[in-house]
C-alpha cells in the first residue's frame, strides 16, 4: 500500500507540475460544455436532466482519455526511468495499479469540475439527482475502461503518438460495437444473437443503464473486467519487454 501511495503521489504531482493537466482540464471542460449546451441542445430539450451532458461522454473521452494515458509507460520507457522504478523494491503489478490509479484520480478531478452543469440543471428545474449521481459513476467507470486500454497501448511502445492512436482505435471499437448506426448495419446480415453479442462488448450499451439511473451489477462488472483485463495485459507486455 505504501508503495502504491508513493507512486500515486508522484504521478499526480507530475501531472500538475507540467502544463498537461491544465491544458487537459480546460479542453475537457470546454468540450463537455460545448457538447452539452450547444450540440446537445440542453435548453431546447425542456427536461431537467443531464442526458445531454452524459450522452457525449463516450465521444469526448475517446480523444481525451488516451491523451492522458499515452504517457504512462511510453514515457518511462523512453527516458529509462522504467529501469529505475522496477529495480526499486516495487512489484510490477504495484507500479501498474499505482500509475493507473493516479491517472484515474486525475480524470475524476476533471469530471468533478463539471459540477456547474449539475448546479445549472438544479437551478433551472427539478432533476432526479439520483440519476445524475449514477451518470457520474458510469462516466467515471467509462473513463477508467478507456484509461486502462490507453495504459496497455502505452506499455507497447516508447512512442507516445503511437500509443495514442492505437488506444483511440481500440476505444472506438468499444463504442462502435454498440453504436446504433453500426448495429443497424449488422442486423441486415447477422442473426440477432450475433448483434447482441457484439453490442455486449460496447461501452455504450453498458453506459446506457447508468445514464438512465440504473446501476446494474452486470454493467459495473463489464467496466471492471475491461479495466482488469487491460491492466493484466499491461503487466504481460511489460514483463515481455524485459524477457527479451
Amino acid at each position, binding site marked *: 500500500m*505504501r508503495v502504491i501511495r508513493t507512486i500515486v503521489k508522484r504521478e499526480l504531482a507530475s501531472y500538475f507540475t507540467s502544463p498537461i493537466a491544465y491544458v487537459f482540464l480546460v479542453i475537457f471542460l470546454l468540450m463537455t460544455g460545448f457538447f452539452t449546451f450547444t450540440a446537445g441542445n440542453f435548453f431546447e430539450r425542456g427536461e431537467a436532466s443531464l442526458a445531454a451532458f452524459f450522452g457525449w461522454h463516450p465521444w469526448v473521452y475517446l480523444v481525451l482519455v488516451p491523451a492522458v494515458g499515452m504517457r504512462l509507460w511510453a514515457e518511462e520507457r523512453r527516458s*529509462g526511468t522504467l529501469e*529505475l522504478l522496477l529495480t*526499486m*523494491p516495487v512489484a510490477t503489478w504495484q507500479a501498474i495499479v499505482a500509475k493507473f490509479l493516479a491517472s484515474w484520480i486525475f480524470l475524476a478531478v476533471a469530471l468533478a469540475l463539471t459540477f456547474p452543469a449539475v448546479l445549472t440543471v438544479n437551478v433551472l428545474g427539478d432533476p432526479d439527482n439520483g440519476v445524475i449521481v449514477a451518470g457520474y459513476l458510469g462516466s467515471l467507470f467509462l473513463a477508467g475502461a478507456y484509461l486502462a486500454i490507453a495504459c496497455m497501448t502505452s506499455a507497447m511502445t516508447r512512442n507516445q503518438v503511437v500509443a495514442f492512436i492505437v488506444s483511440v482505435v481500440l476505444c472506438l471499437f468499444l463504442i462502435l460495437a454498440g453504436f446504433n448506426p453500426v448495429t443497424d448495419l449488422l442486423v441486415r446480415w447477422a442473426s440477432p444473437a450475433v448483434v447482441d453479442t457484439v453490442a455486449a462488448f460496447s461501452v455504450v450499451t453498458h453506459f446506457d443503464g447508468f445514464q438512465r439511473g440504473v446501476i446494474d451489477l452486470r454493467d459495473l462488472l463489464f467496466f471492471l473486467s475491461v479495466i482488469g483485463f487491460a491492466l493484466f495485459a499491461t503487466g504481460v507486455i511489460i514483463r515481455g519487454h524485459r*524477457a527479451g
Partner: protein
Amino acid sequence: MIQIENLVKSFGAKRAVDGISFTVERGEVLGFLGPNGAGKSTTMRMITGFMPPSSGRVKVGGYDVAESPLEAKRLIGYLPENAAAYPDMTVQGFLNFAAELRGLEGGARKKAVNRVIELCFLHSVLRQSIETLSKGYKHRTCLAQALIHDPDVLIMDEPTDGLDPNQKHEVRNLIRELGRNKAIVFSTHILEEVDAACTRAIIIDRGRIVANGTPEELRGMSKLAGAVTLAARGATEEKLAPLGRVERLDGAFRIYPSDKSKAAELAQAVVDLVNHYGWKVEGMYSERGELDEVFRRITLPDTAAK
C-alpha cells in the same frame, strides 16, 4: 554478497550474456570491463532484477533475484545507464520519492536524504528540476538515489560516463570509500578507473568472461610487463641482446625478460651492464604492463571478427 552462476541472456538468436559466473564479497569493488555491446549492462540488469535471465541464477545477499525479487532489491542500490531520473521532479522531490519507495518515512527519510545530499554535493541544486541540471549534477542525483538506503550492494552502470575530470575523480574516490563495507560492481570502459577504484576487474567480451583478476594481475598479462626500458648514451642493441629480446624505440631500448617471473633479475642485470660499460643513463623504467594493451589483445580479435 553477489553470487552469479552460469548466467545466460539471449535476445532472439543473439546471446548477449553467455554463461557468466562470478562472486563479489563485501569489501570488494569489482570493475566490469568490456567493449560496447559486450553484455555489461545486460548482466547488471539481471543482477538488479530488471531483466529475468534466460538461464542461470543470481543471488544477492542470499536471496535469489528471480524467486524473491523484493528482498533482493531491498539490498541493492542501482545507478542505471545514463543516470535516468524523472525530469519533471526537483532533486529534493526525487530523493524523497526514492526514500519513500525504499520504505523510509518521517525522520528516517529526512536523515537519509540529507546524508546523500551531503555525500553527493547536491546542496546547490535541491530545488531545481532534474531536466535543468547539468550532466554531472544529474548523474550525482541518480547516484544519490542509489545510496539513499545505504545499500549493502551497489551496482553502477558507467558511473563516470559524461563527467568532467574533477567529477570523475570525486566519483572514483567515493566508490573506493564506499567499497570498504559494501559489495560494489561498476562497469566502465575507461581503464584508468580500474586502477583508481577497483580491487578486482573482470573483462567480458561477447557475453563471456575473458579475464578475471586484480588490476595488478591483469596488467601482468601484458606483454610489456616486466620489460625494462633503458635510455642510455653508449648503449647498443648487440650489447643488450644477451639479456633478452631487445626492441629499439625512439632513442631508447626495451628489453623483454625471457620469463616474466624473472622480471626483477632483469632489472638488476641491466643495471650491472650499465655499470660494466659505464654508459650514461638518461632514463630507465621497469614496465608494469599496460591494461590498455591487455584489454585490446583479449577483446580485439573477437570484435574485429564481427
